[in-house]
């Protein structure tokens, strides 16, 4: 078999770093473990550089089961950026909460490897391999805060639900294989494009099961039940990682498999997808309003954002997919940043995630509060921040595709979301009291992560052209 190894490079780079971190962890002293974080960051930076150098390539390997194109590289960049921010924001947190550092960092890196494979997978089996690599690592990460009962509960719940979703996906893959005779996306696509009379009915069942599996993974209503508990229980930096990178990975695979290769089936799942999008937005937003905890509110908000992203999938074609990719890039910094600010509020392994804990933050920590306001306003879709440009393009793609009603439902949902996002700002600036003097995780690295996320939120809002161009060429590389 002709196997060029170049397409493996980004994934292998991260995997190698993970192994180095894991092994080194055994040989180095307790107080020197901070080094492991730097090694992880170095590995991620190298991977980022490789991804930039490889931009524009479209090379398949191992019999075209893995395809390194701009689409894969675009997502690779998002994954490693989020992974790097996660490492940055955990450096102090893991010590405060007694999480074992070596394993924490290597698991983050393993999960990232899985995501990179998912985005590059051109074969349903390889996709499944990547998905499991990612999922198993994240199950463990969720439960890593062993002194917290919530964390263990969340891990258990996540594992059970995840295993359930995996079952759906695998069954769907099996049925599609049965119908088309292949797991390779190119061959499946070729089969579907053949002019022939009848597709076996279980092909649609397979597609539907795949849809359900993805629905679980991205947290679309009605498959969202695990999200709030798992997001709330997991260590906060891990929650940020899950809400952004894991979700992006699931959408990456979804976009590649359902939107492109299986696109001949479009008309059959247009309706279920529409219903899914509307339900996800509306229910996510409605439930987010009544949450007492900011972390839980953000969990529901991530459900709502999955709904906006689904609009991009419904709209499909060039603009729907481009705006889907771009929206993920704009959603990432604001959501991750918000979780990073919650990380900051942790005190001596006691999380402070209720609205009340944000009271008075605006004048005690002006810059943290300003960053948090930016994240909230961006998520609510205020211009000129990233969230607005993301929504603008998503809604525009819906209108171009003739789904003006979806765009209207989308903006009405943004209006709902304003209510709970502004509540955080109300607490920070318009209520007195709350956090006392020394109750923050004072870590320059965590501040750096927050600062980088804030800068990205502004940059993507004011100068979105370059990223849009990337999203576009990432999408075009699918053809």
């Amino acid at each position, binding site marked *: 078999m002709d196997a060029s190894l170049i397409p493996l490079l980004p994934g292998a780079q991260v995997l190698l770093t993970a192994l180095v971190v894991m092994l080194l962890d055994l040989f180095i002293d307790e107080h020197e473990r901070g080094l492991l974080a730097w090694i992880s960051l170095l590995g991620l930076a190298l991977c980022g550089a490789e991804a930039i150098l490889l931009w524009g390539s479209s090379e398949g390997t191992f019999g075209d089961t893995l395809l390194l194109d701009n689409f894969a590289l675009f997502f690779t960049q998002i994954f490693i950026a989020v992974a790097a921010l996660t490492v940055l924001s955990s450096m102090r947190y893991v010590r405060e909460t007694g999480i074992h550092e070596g394993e924490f960092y290597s698991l983050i890196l393993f999960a990232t490897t899985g995501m990179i494979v998912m985005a590059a997978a051109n074969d349903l089996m390889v996709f499944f391999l990547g998905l499991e690599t990612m999922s198993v690592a994240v199950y463990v990460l969720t439960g890593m805060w062993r002194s917290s009962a919530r964390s263990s509960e969340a891990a258990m719940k996540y594992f059970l639900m995840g295993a359930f979703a995996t079952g759906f996906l695998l069954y769907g893959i099996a049925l599609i294989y049965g119908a088309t005779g292949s797991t390779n996306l190119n061959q499946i696509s070729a089969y579907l494009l053949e002019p022939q009379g009848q597709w076996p009915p279980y092909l649609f069942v397979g597609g539907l099961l795949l849809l359900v599996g993805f629905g679980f993974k991205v947290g679309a209503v009605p498959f969202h039940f695990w999200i709030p508990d798992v997001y709330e229980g997991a260590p906060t930096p891990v929650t940020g990682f899950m809400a952004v990178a894991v979700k992006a990975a699931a959408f990456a695979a979804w976009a590649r498999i359902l939107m492109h290769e299986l696109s001949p089936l479009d008309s059959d799942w247009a309706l279920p997808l529409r219903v899914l999008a509307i339900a996800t937005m509306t229910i996510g937003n409605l439930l987010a309003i009544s949450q007492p905890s900011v972390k839980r509110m953000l969990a529901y908000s991530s459900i709502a954002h999955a709904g906006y992203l689904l609009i991009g999938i419904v709209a499909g074609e060039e603009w729907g997919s481009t705006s889907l990719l771009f929206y993920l890039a704009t959603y990432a910094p604001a959501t991750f940043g918000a979780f990073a600010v919650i990380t900051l509020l942790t005190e001596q392994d006691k999380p402070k995630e209720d609205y009340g804990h944000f009271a008075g933050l605006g004048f005690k920590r002006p810059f943290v509060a300003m960053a948090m306001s930016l994240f909230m*306003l961006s998520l609510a879709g205020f*211009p000129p921040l990233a969230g607005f440009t993301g929504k*603008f393009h998503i809604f525009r793609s819906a*209108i171009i595709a*003739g789904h003006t009603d979806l*765009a*209207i439902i989308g903006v009405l949902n943004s209006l709902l979301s304003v209510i709970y996002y*502004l509540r955080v700002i109300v607490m920070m600036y318009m209520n007195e009291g709350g956090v006392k003097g020394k109750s923050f995780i004072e870590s320059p690295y965590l501040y750096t992560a927050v600062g980088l996320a804030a800068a990205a939120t502004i940059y993507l809002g004011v100068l979105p052209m370059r990223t849009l161009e990337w999203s576009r060429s990432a999408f075009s590389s699918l053809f």
Partner: protein
Amino acid sequence: MSQFAVGHLSLILLIPLVGAVVLLLIPRQQRQVLLTVSLLFSLAAFVWSMRLFQAFDAGNGDMQFVERVTWMPAFGIAYIVGIDGISLFLVLLTTFLMPLAILASWPVREKIKEYLFFMLVLETGMLGAFVALDLFLFYIFWEVMLVPMYFLIGIWGGARRIYAALKFVVYTMAGSLLMLVAIIYLATRYAHVHQVLTFDLLQLYNLHLPVNEQTWLFLAFALSFAIKVPLFPFHTWLPDAHVEAPTAGSVILAGILLKMGTYGFLRFAIPLFPNAALAMAPVIIALAVIGILYGAAVAMMQADFKKLVAYSSVSHLGFVMLGLFALNIQGIQGGIYQMISHGLSTGALFFLVGMIYDRRHTRMIDDFGGLWQQMPVFSVFLLIVTFASIGLPGLNGFIGEFLILLGAFSVTPGWTAAAACGIILGAIYMLWMLRRLIFGPLTHPENQKLVDLSHRELLILAPIVALILIMGVYPQPFLSRMQPSVDLTLKRIVTSQAAPVATNHGTSGEMKTDGR
């Protein structure tokens, strides 16, 4: 203006923003420095806008000082700004009121740094909305204004400030988000017909859609603007926001932000969808007149001075809407004139409310009475401003109202007669308020210690009253600059009715975008 790296209008937009950034560098203990710096920056913006006024070509109805910078070329989005005879005066009103509002903020004790920061950001936002000629850019400024105003009400407001601030934001966003959908839809339709994707307002004027499509789009735009104006029955956010906001916030809300709604009708909703505007005009005129009478009736019953002024705004803005939707030269000119007049006189009224509130910490009209003896200067100013607000001949309010009634009478005599009754109601509640506040015996012992206006307060009121007199006696420089632009707007409406309607071809699927 292409020879300048930064054009006139961009400079005016930049000055307050730079001021806001400079404020961040000054330590928060330096109260005086913070106040002085922000005052200087807002004055600089005013001085620069006066130069604009001088350089403005009065005979030209087109956009002037136009600047174009490509921003997102693939999406037809550009930074386009420019002003004509309509927006010129709104820009001037903004730059004129802002230094005064900052001057009125001297008594603010808490968190003055953030307060001034938001004021200056707000100024840039408002100016941007008045000069933007690209719908995307306009939408950005329109939303950007919301955030600082939200903070100003929510942090420095009265007892129910958080409720009022949230209500203000949610109401405004409810309208503007639907407008966003309409904007995108409009640009997409333009791209179908003309094969070019653009958000450039002047180009979008050339798109003539079928009436039912126009109606939907007009309604989306109109909802957003009607909430801002506020047109009855979308006014319920206004009393809360105006009453809870700090003095400068109320002045800006009433003086400038409400004009954003009427300006939006005149600049966007009417010329973009003229057929729909004509079809909907009777409805809007009816709502405007109901608003005039309702606002006046409710104002009459208010025990709170500030609430009275707030409801009088509902009534006065009803006149503006009546004038605009008369859709003739007198009506529209009167409407614009009334926007400026209302900005000055209601702005001054809110300043005066703030001044006695600072002294007595109450705004209940019954807590006063006989102020003439203790505060003669205050009383004189209140008298003049109230008369201006009623529309006494010789003061600015008269010209606008007269032109509006003149324009509206030729279109709908019945509603105009009803609106004229609104003027009488206005005179009643305003004069009654005057009688209870400044005339009569000085019954409350607390009021015997009141001191008259300070130099700072005089400095705030004197320029406004001077302008009230000038605009009342010599309206020509204002009207002559408005006229060509109003003519052009009316011409657009007429030509558009004659123009062939864009066909509905290619509503789905293929669409060309420019530049690729």
